């Protein structure tokens, strides 16, 4: 996979001036034939797990064995995640955009024969419209891609992330050249301020303002100023930042370099989750090759600007993604938050002014510099500019990573891009913002997705996790699930978070057992507010959100549990009963054989009966019955 050019391997390869970078880019482009077929094999984490490296190997062998005419020998390229992981492994032909899904090594011979030699697509590997069954040939026509606006993700799926030449050919580091040669640091900050960019790590703080504050504090006292990238991404199910680090690491580096120039920093850290080995490896290679090329280190491109970066592997805890815990962790202390009454832009890492941004925030920066603040401001809504990357998971047909302009409605995202919920199910709610986000019900699905609308609706942008829920989901159970995640992740330092969340769980447990009273709902609400107001860091400060949001939109469901001792979605074990419908049961005996309690009896080919007093509600009978005769209520 590593295609470091010979020039990059030699020690004297260093781009000494901006002109040298331009000449280098020209030489790479001149070597390339724009009409040559490139076969792209996704090497994102999802496709790798589904065999894509073997597919790439098989392709390389098959192409070599096919004895193709020199003009038609394709280049085979390994890239980062294309976002449509549920269809992986993906193989895409460029420049045409021909798109194959779920490709396995056995398919390769046919691909070479039909597509490369005969010039026709292999139909069975094409995407088929789920409604009409019609085949779609090109990636751009697949609804999943058609309704996206892939700007930050634009290189991913096209470039080989560890080949610096690919990045440079795609225009990488041009924005860095622009700021180093034609803008003052202050002009750079002003441009980022004017763009309206807000932090993608959750809080939505204005990036330009943060940069200006850090720069000003940096000038007040002598000493280093630090630039940090947050790649800790601890939300379950979220993989936006991982995809960026794995698929286009130089975009993150370039954003940080531009920030460092603007703020006046010469040292930076990328804090990346240790559980992301591929991201770590890719970033490490990117840093090495950028350093070798003179794009990192002393006197970058001969402009006198110096900046270098270290990688720091995260301690693994969710709370380590919080800014002060992250800095403590880099300093080698326990990853625990501290009070932020003196902000990290003034006293951050090692007590010095520090500017921390999320990796997606950093990856937006080169785009803004290249295309201007006005261009950026045209995308998105009044208060939220640009695009946002989301990971769309749960009960939705097209699970994957999507990038859309801010302000897209929930409905468009779930229906057009996500393809809706699976057949026979109904959309119920979407959980947005990671574990401490909120659930927004169907009734509000015209809500535009932007920082402020989500906040007002009781959810939050978070880092961009989205979980689609259908009518088989119990909202009390969902609230309990997220609360449990956060209890596990609490660092335990402050009392409202450590003991308060635990108490909330106790109360919810009573509800899901059909106990409790309406007064308990009020108590739960007041406890939630005490935790929000009283906790030290934003983990505790936002942890009650899942409960508050479900209480706000699904109060009737809470009341059904408490007042009527019923779980409408038939999830909460203590409130459901299993039974056998004699009309539908044909006496196949499947359930009776599987029931661990021996609660089901009956003779073969006769309707069976379920003894409720023995039943432990494991649901196995419900799963195994092929005739829908086991009912749950």
């Amino acid at each position, binding site marked *: 996979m590593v295609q470091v050019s010979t020039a990059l391997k030699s020690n004297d390869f260093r781009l000494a001036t901006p002109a040298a970078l331009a000449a280098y880019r020209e030489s790479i482009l001149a070597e390339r034939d724009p009409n040559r077929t490139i076969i792209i094999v996704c090497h994102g984490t999802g496709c790798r797990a589904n065999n894509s490296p073997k597919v790439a190997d098989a392709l390389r062998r098959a192409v070599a064995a096919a004895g193709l005419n020199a003009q038609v020998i394709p280049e085979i390229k390994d890239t980062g995640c294309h976002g449509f992981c549920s269809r992986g492994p993906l193989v895409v032909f460029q420049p045409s955009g021909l798109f194959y899904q779920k490709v396995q090594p056995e398919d390769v011979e046919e691909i070479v024969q039909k597509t490369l030699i005969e010039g026709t697509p292999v139909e069975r590997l094409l995407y088929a419209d789920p409604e009409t069954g019609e085949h779609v040939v090109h990636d751009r026509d697949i609804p999943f891609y058609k309704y996206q606006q892939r700007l930050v993700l634009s290189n991913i799926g096209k470039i080989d992330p560890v080949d610096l030449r690919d990045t440079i050919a795609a225009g990488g580091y041009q924005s860095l050249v622009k700021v180093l040669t034609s803008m003052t640091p202050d002009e750079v900050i002003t441009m980022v301020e004017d763009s309206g960019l807000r932090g993608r790590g959750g809080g939505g703080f204005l990036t330009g303002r943060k940069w200006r504050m850090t720069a000003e504090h940096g000038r007040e006292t002598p000493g280093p100023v630090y630039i940090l990238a947050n790649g800790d991404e601890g939300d379950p199910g979220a993989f936006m930042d991982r995809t960026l680090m794995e698929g286009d690491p130089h975009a993150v580096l370039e954003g940080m370099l531009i920030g460092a120039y603007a703020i006046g920093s010469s040292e930076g850290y990328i804090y990346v989750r240790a559980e992301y080995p591929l991201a770590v490896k890719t970033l490490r290679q990117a840093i090495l090759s950028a350093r070798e090329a003179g794009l990192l280190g002393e006197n970058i491109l001969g402009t006198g600007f110096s900046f270098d970066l270290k990688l720091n592997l995260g301690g693994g*805890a969710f709370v380590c993604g919080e800014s002060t815990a992250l800095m403590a962790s880099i300093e080698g202390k*326990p990853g625990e938050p*501290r*009070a932020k*009454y*003196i902000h990290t832009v003034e006293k951050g890492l090692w007590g010095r002014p520090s500017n921390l941004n999320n990796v997606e925030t950093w990856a937006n920066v080169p785009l803004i510099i290249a295309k201007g603040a006005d261009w950026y401001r045209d995308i998105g809504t009044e208060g939220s500019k640009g695009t946002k990357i989301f990971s769309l998971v749960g009960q939705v047909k097209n699970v994957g990573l999507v990038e859309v302009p801010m302000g897209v409605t929930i409905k468009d995202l779930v229906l057009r891009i996500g393809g809706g919920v699976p057949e026979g199910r109904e959309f119920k709610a979407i959980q947005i913002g990671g574990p401490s986000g909120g659930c927004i019900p169907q009734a509000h699905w015209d809500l535009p997705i932007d920082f402020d609308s989500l906040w007002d609706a009781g959810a939050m942008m978070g880092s961009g996790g989205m979980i689609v829920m259908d009518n088989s989901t119990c909202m009390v159970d969902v609230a309990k699930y997220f609360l449990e995640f956060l*209890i*596990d*992740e*609490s*660092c*335990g*330092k*402050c*009392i*409202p978070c*450590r*003991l*308060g969340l*635990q*108490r909330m769980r*106790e109360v919810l447990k009573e509800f899901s057992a059909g106990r409790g009273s309406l007064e308990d709902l009020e108590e739960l609400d*007041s*406890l939630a*507010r*005490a*935790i929000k*107001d*009283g*906790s*030290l860091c934003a983990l505790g400060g936002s942890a009650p959100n899942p409960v508050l949001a479900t209480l706000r939109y699904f109060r009737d469901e809470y009341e059904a549990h408490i007042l009527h001792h019923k779980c409408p979605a038939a999830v909460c074990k203590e409130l459901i009963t299993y039974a056998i419908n004699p009309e539908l049961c044909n006496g196949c005996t499947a359930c009776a054989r599987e029931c661990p309690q021996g609660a089901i009896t009956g003779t073969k080919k006769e309707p069976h009966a379920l003894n409720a007093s023995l039943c432990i509600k494991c649901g196995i009978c419900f799963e195994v019955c092929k005739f829908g005769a086991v009912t749950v209520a």
Partner: protein
Amino acid sequence: MITFSINGKEVQGQEGWTILEVARWHGIEIPTLCHHGALEPYGACRLCVVEVNDGKRSRVVISCMYPIRTGINVQTDTPRVLNVRRWIVQLLLDESPESPKIRELAQTLGVTPSRFQKKGVDFACHLCGLCVRVCQEVVGVQALSFSNRGLRKEISSPFHTASKECLGCGTCIYICPTGAMEQVFLRVHG
């Protein structure tokens, strides 16, 4: 000198002082648990919350760490503040019903044990960290530390063995507001 107000009364303090320090100087009561004048503030118990309005917005902050600023308006007993304090005391009382300090606090706030009260533990540790800090900052050794995280977090000796560093001075037992240190001490001192 920095001038601001607490509960409508104009007060003054030196640059670098916290709200709690100025409040105490003026005899204004704010309950605390993890704070001790001789130790670095730690900000864990959150009992000392107050509401601060800086003219732009109103926030609940902890007075033991919040540095005073000119013109801020501090309220020590707003409904939001009392709600936080009441719940903290409720949670602590249910954890550690026999602790005299907690019982006293509960009495002033009118809090009584709830149905979630823990059985079998009289003196639970609240992880206020006073013992760890006093050992390190005043006694000058590091015989105590925190270990684990979240619900499993606890006070122990480094590496969970009887600590070679422990002088047996008992300062930690003396400072502990809950009585939990007596048990921990037996393990640490060996």
